[in-house]
């Protein structure tokens, strides 16, 4: 199921705008981005010993990883939502049309 519940709690707003608790995929994307930022910046520093440039690499890594993780998660989320809607409509149609000619699960008999 898509994790879209829990809207009742007051969320934490990063930079005052992004509600990471109530926005699906936000928390995971930020965590992935932060992790990648630390790793990329640290590796660059170990390789080059340049502090400022390592910070630049870290920030670039943060942005790219957050964006990539965000799009990947949102895409999967959207696919799940579409599937949920199809299942819900299928269940509703099954309940409404069961036993009638329009029952989608009924095998067509040749007369």
């Amino acid at each position: 199921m898509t994790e879209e519940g829990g809207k009742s709690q007051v969320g934490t707003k990063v930079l005052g705008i992004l509600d990471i608790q109530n926005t699906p995929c936000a928390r995971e994307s930020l965590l992935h981005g932060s992790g990648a930022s630390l790793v990329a910046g640290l590796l660059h520093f170990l390789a080059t010993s340049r502090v400022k440039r390592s910070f630049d690499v870290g920030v670039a890594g943060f942005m790219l990883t957050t964006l990539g993780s965000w799009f990947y998660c949102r895409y999967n989320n959207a696919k799940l939502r579409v599937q949920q809607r199809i299942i819900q409509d299928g269940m509703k149609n099954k309940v409404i049309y069961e036993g009638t000619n329009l029952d989608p699960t009924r095998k067509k008999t040749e007369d």
Partner: protein
Amino acid sequence: MAHPTQLGFQDAASPVMEELLHFHDHALMIVFLISTLVLYIIIAMVSTKLTNKYILDSQEIEIVWTVLPAVILVLIALPSLRILYLMDEINDPHLTIKAMGHQWYWSYEYTDYEDLGFDSYMIPTQDLTPGQFRLLETDHRMVVPMESPVRVLVSAEDVLHSWAVPSLGVKMDAVPGRLNQTAFIASRPGVFYGQCSEICGANHSFMPIVVEAVPLEHFESWSSLMLEDA
């Protein structure tokens, strides 16, 4: 309805509003990343000791800061246009309701089958019962069947008004002499509040909209009851 100090959207009660919520999250994440980048650049510029007085041009950075914003705009535009066309899809409404704006109340007409019409005035604060919401409750609600496409024809009798229900993702200007059309599907039963969204005089803030989505059987009983009372 909105809770006190709420800044974000209300929970979606229609498929279109759900899509708008998701698009808003998407755009906000992009805005957040751009803000982070700008903040970092500002800090880096302020804290550097380097000065370079001899830069004349730099092809690479010019390409980056031209292509990157274009790509970002495309990433925002594609889902935006998708929702725009989704909102304009031809749907086959099960019910048509006329919402007429007056100074300062709304009137609703259900004329598909019988002639049912009623006015919807705000309940004054002193007449509220415990549990009712100040400046949002009305004496008669616009009742609609849930999970059914509903078309609303919006117009006005005097001055400009606007019929808006945020949780359904609906806002349409009520213009005298003009018939504007909007449609929605209430995905779940509930009571959804809105307020007039176009300045229309002294009591512009005191002509709310209340939409109550109920199962079809309850809608049929409600409409029969309203016709008997009329």
